[in-house]
């Protein structure tokens, strides 16, 4: 069977750009592909059988892009939604991110936002061509014909289906400036069933870990116990003698054992004798880092924002509030452990995995293999969770698989065990925030002096020159430096210490700690001023109608101010991130062991114009549970350079019984579309912390809010 069939089409449109495109057809769709005669641009194929295939340049990791992006095309195409299918795009320039530069990436909650215009135009252009083809057949003025539900209708009521018109439409020029439909939407704003659901409930969805090719070996890698460690020497004699083990090779990441199946590789790995050179990070521990961070927070950092003169105002104030917030390293802990399949030949390479960062991963593979990036075919499978982990600035899981494939000389699938996955990095950085604030005579913040200490996720990566400005990595301070709260004297400073721990974006990135700090302390200040925390925020956000609206919606829908059953407390938080505004109200109690039980979360979101409302709700639910796992349980800690957690017993996640009832309210908005994958995460930790304070008078400023952390805070 031929792996790939290439069809070259000439005129391509992408956001008004005319591009040449090599169009690969994946094997699973090869039968349908032969019927796909109308390929007006890089994102759309229409077949004689009326099928509409949308080629999606974003990775499906649960956020629903295999449905929402086709909806954008289908809305303008006026096709029959029931005929719409999705297909993952290959890696090619026309599939690069529409806003982030020459790179194919899924991240920053940007898929719908960045593709809205391009995919709308792609659909509109195709519709105009189909209408023109029909009008020519009928010899009528195209402007008198219309497209509806996959059919073009003439003024006299004659009908031709898109499939019947596909051959003729393919011969027409692509309109350079297609006209978008009127404001009335048929699909957008109405819940649509996810196109990927059927494959995900019958076991047929193929994730990276499911990839299988003839002659393939499966490999696991023995990795150094500390970051930056190297193999000093090793003995693989017994490992090689284990049944099924075919090769043991040294790679950058450690010693790889390749075998006929995973279990044999794992058993073979157990038999390796390795002496490690642990390198310079063998002594690091999170308590020591904490001390270092605490010291740094007493010194002046780089200024990320300065309004007025917070230090001077604070120096004169008699009633300063001083608060220290700490949050730990966090693992992404995607349910699908990291993995990658590589078939390397002398002049070509096939990589198949679930990646959010295809261009970067492919470039890394090119460096390792000596091939040109264009010689490397990169196929994206379903991702068993992403959360930023599969957009790795260091391309770690792809690089190691390419290195193993190169050393072994056979097609290889490298799989990480859960422990490999959790201990080998990357993590959300540990953060230490120190804030001093004081109030004006009316009880509102007069000065806020905030020092943030934590590793930059961008420094030392290829993105440093583009994303770190004058020493400030914006992802370290976002959510604080751009706070909408009206504080006349505001100073945000940053320290970015370096150490050996690999760090990366983790769902909601900087907002995952700054929202906790801002919204917790705001709550404290409200209480200090003797004001209701909801009303306090309303006053401070008076000039920000979108923040205000979600805040008000969450408060009203949650019954803010109404009595709660005994033993329950209610907390509120609001935060803007990734172009969307989210407010949440959490209702909590304390269980017998002193742990927090979250009963109910009411969430209001304004994410601008919407595509699939059910996906928005699902993403808010998802963000809340994800954020709750971090708020209540999540911590990666190090001792003697070693990560102390390894699996879901030591790194627990929210389970069924701990999952609160969640209500999501979408605030109608005609603003530009915002993201939905991440913005649900930031408000939940402060909403819960604020609810705990309302319930118990205890302010917890350390995550996770374990029974021990709560007990410690109560003593203060």
């Amino acid at each position: 069977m031929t792996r790939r069939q290439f069809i070259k089409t000439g005129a391509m449109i992408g956001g008004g750009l005319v591009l040449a495109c090599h169009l690969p057809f994946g094997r699973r769709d090869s039968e349908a592909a032969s019927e796909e005669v109308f390929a007006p641009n890089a994102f759309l194929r229409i077949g004689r059988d009326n099928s509409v295939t949308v080629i999606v340049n974003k990775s499906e990791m649960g956020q629903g892009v295999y449905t929402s992006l086709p909806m954008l095309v289908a809305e303008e195409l006026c096709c029959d939604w029931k005929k719409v299918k999705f297909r993952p795009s290959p890696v090619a320039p026309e599939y690069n991110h529409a806003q982030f530069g020459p790179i194919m990436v899924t991240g920053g909650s940007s898929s719908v936002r960045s593709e809205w215009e391009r995919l709308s135009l792609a659909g509109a252009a195709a519709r105009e061509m189909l209408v023109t083809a029909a009008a020519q057949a009928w010899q009528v003025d195209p402007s008198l014909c219309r497209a509806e539900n996959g059919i073009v209708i003439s003024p006299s009521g004659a009908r031709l289906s898109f499939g019947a018109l596909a051959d003729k439409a393919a011969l027409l020029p692509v309109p350079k400036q297609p006209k978008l439909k009127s404001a009335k939407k048929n699909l957008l704003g109405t819940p649509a069933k996810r196109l990927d659901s059927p494959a995900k409930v019958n076991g047929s969805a193929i994730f990276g870990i499911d990839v299988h090719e003839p002659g393939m070996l499966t490999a696991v890698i023995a990795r150094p116990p500390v970051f930056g460690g190297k193999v000093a020497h090793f003995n693989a004699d017994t490992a090689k003698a284990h049944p099924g083990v075919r090769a043991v090779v040294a790679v950058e990441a450690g010693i790889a054992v390749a075998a006929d199946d995973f279990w044999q590789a794992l058993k073979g790995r157990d038999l390796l004798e390795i002496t490690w050179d642990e390198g310079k990070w063998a002594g690091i521990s999170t308590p020591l880092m904490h001390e270092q961070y605490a010291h740094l927070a007493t010194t002046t950092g780089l200024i990320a924002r300065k309004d007025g003169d917070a230090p001077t105002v604070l120096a004169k104030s008699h009633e300063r509030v001083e608060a220290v917030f700490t949050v730990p390293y966090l693992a992404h802990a995607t349910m699908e452990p990291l993995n990658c399949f590589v078939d390397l030949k002398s002049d070509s390479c096939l990589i198949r995995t679930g990646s959010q960062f295809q261009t970067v991963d492919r470039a890394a593979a090119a460096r390792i293999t000596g091939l040109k990036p264009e010689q490397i075919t990169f196929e994206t499978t379903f991702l068993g969770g992403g959360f930023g982990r599969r957009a790795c600035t260091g391309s770690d899981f792809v690089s190691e698989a390419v290195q193993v494939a190169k050393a072994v000389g056979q097609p290889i699938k490298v799989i990480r065990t859960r422990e490999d996955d959790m201990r080998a990095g990357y993590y959300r950085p540990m953060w230490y925030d120190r804030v001093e604030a004081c109030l004006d005579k009316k009880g509102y913040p007069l000065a806020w002096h905030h020092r943030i200490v934590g590793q930059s996720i961008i420094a030392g990566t290829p993105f440093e020159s583009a994303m770190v400005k004058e020493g400030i990595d914006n992802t370290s301070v976002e959510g604080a430096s751009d706070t909408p709260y009206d504080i006349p004297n505001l100073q945000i400073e940053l320290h970015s210490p370096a150490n050996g721990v690999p760090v990366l974006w983790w769902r909601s990135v900087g907002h995952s700690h700054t929202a906790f700090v801002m919204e917790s302390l705001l709550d404290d200040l409200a209480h200090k001023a003797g004001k209701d925390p909801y009303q306090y925020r309303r006053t401070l956000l008076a000039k920000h109608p979108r923040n205000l609206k979600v805040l008000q919606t969450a408060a009203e829908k949650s019954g803010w101010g109404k009595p709660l059953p005994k033993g329950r407390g209610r907390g509120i938080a609001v935060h803007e991130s990734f172009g969307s505004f989210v407010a949440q109200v959490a209702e909590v109690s304390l269980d017998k062991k002193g742990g927090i039980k979250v009963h109910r979360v009411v969430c209001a979101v304004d994410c601008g114009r919407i595509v699939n409302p059910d996906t928005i709700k699902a993403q808010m639910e998802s963000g809340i549970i994800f954020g709750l796992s971090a708020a209540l349980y999540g911590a990666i800690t190090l001792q003697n350079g070693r990560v102390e957690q390894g699996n879901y017993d030591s790194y627990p996640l929210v389970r069924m019984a701990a999952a609160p009832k969640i209500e999501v309210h979408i605030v109608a908005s005609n603003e530009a579309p915002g993201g939905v994958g991440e913005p649900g995460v930031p408000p939940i930790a402060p909403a819960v912390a604020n609810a705990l304070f309302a319930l118990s008078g205890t302010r917890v400023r350390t995550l996770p809010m374990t029974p021990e952390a709560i007990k410690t805070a109560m003593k203060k």
Partner: protein
Amino acid sequence: MMITLRVNGTKLQADVGMDTPLLWVLRDHLRLTGTKFGCGAGLCGACTVLIDGKPHRSCITPVKDVQGKSITTIEGIPENHPLIQAWLAEEVSQCGYCQPGQIISAVALLAQTPKPNDTDIDRAMTGNLCRCGTYGRIRRAIHVASANKTSKRGKQP
């Protein structure tokens, strides 16, 4: 060693070591990749299969223990099963990786307790992690499937 397994009603053979967990026999040898690897320690439930109708974590079940027993994986659950239909109706799946294990646990629950309450669901589903946080929808889908199953039975003469 050549072993014979009865999976989804079919006798299948694989040449594996007897200590190999059932999960890897299913995935690597029988190519039934719907059953997922998540933790390797019985902590996440992604690998859940039915063995003689009872849910088990196949990642910690040596294949030697299941010879001659009836094994059901996600591939063996019919498309018209009320739980599959409910999972689709409630739009449960996000990344989808844990869902085969979730569905298998739910199949076992409904077989044992046709009308589960929320506490029954908590108990039966607590071993299945979902990093996307689809718990609320899983709970709804189980209730929906349970209601559909009951009403269909009710209509039968």
